[in-house]
């Protein structure tokens, strides 16, 4: 594969696409597929095949369009988005291509949910066919790789990423450029790149969506990373619970190999790179980098103390660059447009955009990409469309089981790494769950503690037994049988786990409890002193116990 050949593929594809004057895009990411978008696509295909327009009308399966709650979603070349489409709507939609839109299905796009978004990571989602590399190439795919390989030294690539201010999107927000530069400077016989696609936070599906909608974007990011740090082998660690993402990744890797974008001497340079998949067996802790590495090595997926950090001693003891899916997906636009362009988006310390999986008690749930620094209020009331049925907002939970619940007072806070941390939560991987007055915060804390308890690997004592004890106390509070003494124990355990657990899972496991204890202490008191659940969620009092 040479740059000219790549241009050729793009040209051919664009030429072919130019024949189609009418296009219908059907979302075939997991969200819409689960509400039968495949049968919608089949119906549309069948409808077009019967018509005279069949030579200039294309029906295409594309990735996620974001508003998952309204799926299956279909968009057309005359700029209309349709929601909740059924197979029976096929004919009407094809008719509408030459007439007025099918009003009963129209999903308005001039609303904040769409207007407030800024798509960088998701720019191809809902636009290109994730199963065809040609479509990705036609959308300027792999040009960033060519640019890096032919116009930039590996140093310059690292510099560009550093300049962009990009921070790790997996949760902790470690500066990506710094990580790349560490790995590039580390000495080893073989370096590795790992893409962490073990997205495990309940309610989070950003990475899955990126992988399902635009797998080549992630591969290209990894290729650039490999070139920058001097690695020739890479793994994508993806959870087995994402079969569609796995299928599309496998397909994408095969296609890239076939056209010579993966393999040896890529684009006529001396750069060689291969990517392999490793499937996670469902352990949340394997999202922790050292546990993930152990799992890739074929060992039990448990974390180990750091240092040494993977950048120095990672996979098989070699320097290893490990980044999250969304981080890699940000690399292509950074290389294409420059780090400086990227650093103008977002806030002073949190650059770029962030993809969030907006869920819970809001009108619009789904996948959104917004610039860093947007306020929580905008997220909930504008993009999210507010709380249904006029109920009262109570809290928004970010960062999954490692995050915290932010109360009304935090609504005007900007969404960036520092502000969230200061308020007692974390950015996390991008889960955002909105809760209203019908949510009980004790119950929420118990839910996350249950998650941490069952997902603890059991290696270190504070996490293994501490999460059990905390869950026991939270269950007692929910059952209205807890005492003031229990609450004291709970606070002691929060402190213990935070400071003595081996890995991030244990250290952050108390966050949902700490943040709800801080902002919703009166709810805990009501359960313990008055034996009442103000939100009416927790079980009825079971009477006095000893």
């Amino acid at each position, binding site marked *: 594969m040479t740059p000219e050949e790549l241009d050729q593929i793009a040209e051919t594809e664009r030429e072919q696409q130019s024949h189609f004057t009418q296009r219908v895009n059907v979302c075939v990411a997991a969200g819409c597929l689960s509400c039968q978008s495949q049968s919608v696509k089949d119906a549309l295909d069948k409808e077009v095949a019967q018509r005279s327009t069949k030579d200039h009308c294309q029906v295409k399966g594309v990735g996620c369009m974001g508003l998952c709650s309204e799926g299956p979603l279909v968009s057309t070349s005359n700029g209309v988005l349709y929601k909740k489409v059924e197979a029976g709507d096929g004919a009407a939609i094809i008719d509408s291509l030459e007439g007025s839109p099918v009003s009963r299905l129209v999903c308005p796009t001039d609303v904040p949910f769409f207007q407030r978004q800024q798509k960088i990571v998701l720019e191809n989602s809902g636009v290109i066919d994730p199963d065809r590399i040609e479509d990705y190439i036609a959308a300027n795919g792999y040009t960033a790789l060519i640019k890096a390989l032919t116009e930039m030294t590996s140093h310059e690539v690292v510099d560009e990423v550093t300049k962009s201010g990009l921070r790790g999107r997996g949760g902790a927000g470690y500066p990506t450029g710094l990580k790349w530069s560490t790995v590039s400077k580390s000495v080893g016989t073989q370096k590795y790149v790992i893409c962490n696609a073990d997205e495990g936070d309940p309610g989070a599906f950003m990475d899955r969506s990126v992988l399902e909608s635009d797998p080549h974007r992630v591969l290209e990011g990894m290729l650039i990373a490999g070139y920058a740090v001097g690695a020739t082998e890479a793994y994508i660690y993806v959870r087995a619970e994402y079969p569609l993402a796995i299928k599309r990744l496998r397909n994408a890797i095969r296609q890239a190999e076939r056209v010579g974008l993966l393999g040896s001497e890529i684009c006529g340079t001396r750069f060689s790179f291969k990517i392999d998949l490793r499937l996670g067996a469902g352990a949340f802790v394997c999202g922790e980098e050292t546990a993930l590495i152990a799992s890739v090595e074929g060992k039990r997926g448990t974390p180990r103390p750091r240092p040494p950090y993977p950048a120095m001693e990672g996979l098989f003891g070699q320097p290893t660059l490990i980044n999250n899916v969304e981080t890699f997906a940000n690399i292509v636009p950074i290389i294409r447009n420059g780090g400086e362009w990227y650093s103008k988006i977002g806030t002073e310390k949190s650059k770029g955009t962030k993809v969030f999986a907006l869920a819970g008690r809001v009108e619009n749930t789904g996948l959104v990409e917004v610039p860093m620094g947007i306020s929580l209020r905008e997220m909930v009331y504008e993009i999210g469309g507010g709380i249904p049925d006029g109920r009262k907002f109570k809290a928004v939970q970010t960062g999954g089981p490692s995050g915290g619940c932010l109360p009304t007072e935090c609504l005007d806070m900007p969404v960036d790494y520092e502000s969230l941390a200061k308020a007692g939560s974390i950015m996390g991987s991008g889960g955002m769950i909105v809760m209203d007055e019908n949510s009980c915060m004790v119950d929420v804390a118990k839910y996350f503690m249950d998650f941490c308890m069952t997902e603890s690997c*059991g290696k270190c004592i*504070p996490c293994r037994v501490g999460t059990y004890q905390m869950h026991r106390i939270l269950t007692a509070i929910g059952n209205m049988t807890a005492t003031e003494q229990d609450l004291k124990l709970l606070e002691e355990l929060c402190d213990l786990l935070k400071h003595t657990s081996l890995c991030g899972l244990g250290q952050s496991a108390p966050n949902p409890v700490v943040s709800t204890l801080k902002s919703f202490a009166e709810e805990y008191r009501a359960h313990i002193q008055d034996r009442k659940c103000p939100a009416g969620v927790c079980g009825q009092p079971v009477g006095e116990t000893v």
Partner: protein
Amino acid sequence: MRQVPTVKTLKINGRDLSGRQEETILDVARQNGIFVPRLCEMDGLTDVGACRLCLVEIKGQNKLLPACVTAVEEGMEVTTDSERLQNYRRMILELLFTERNHVCSVCVSNGHCEMQNLAQRLGITHVHFPYRYPKEDVDASHERFVIDHNRCILCTRCVRVCDEIEGAHTWDVMGRGIEAKVITDLNEPWGSSETCTTCGKCVHVCPTGALFEKGRSVAEMMKRRQFLPYLTLMRKENE
């Protein structure tokens, strides 16, 4: 070319001490008679930093670090016995006592159990978290040894000694979190294990009464741990 060992100087609890570059804080503390509690670490085995009892404070560091895996550094100022650390250690050990059924009075290791001794040394006179009382198995299928899961603290010394020293890898860990347990082979009865060489190393590195020899009384079931540093030393000299 022979590598010249680099020596680092550091302070532990205010004392000026020195250690070689590759040594850990725990190594240096031990050489100088400074007590740092630990249950998973054992001289001669790979360190895993799992029990969290050897956590120490290092000046200028936000996080507490496990002494067993933290290498000494020039100018380091380490505190091993602050009130805060003692408090955490007591809580961790108390949690361990609540986890399974540790009934010292009927245990074959009563009086020579590392966990029991540590509890006394840390001044634990009672456990202020509620006990779990889980139902745990006892596997006595092996002709010479018994594993009593009631007394296991998941330090994984047996797993490591079997893998790293004996080379049999009979032991491993299965399950997650509070459900985790050590197993022989693929969770088969120890007695029918095809990999176990009956060397007994696991029994002698076990810090509690979880692993013991059949037919031994409390007074007889003394564990001989000295073999391990000796074996490791001999191996190193052979290299």
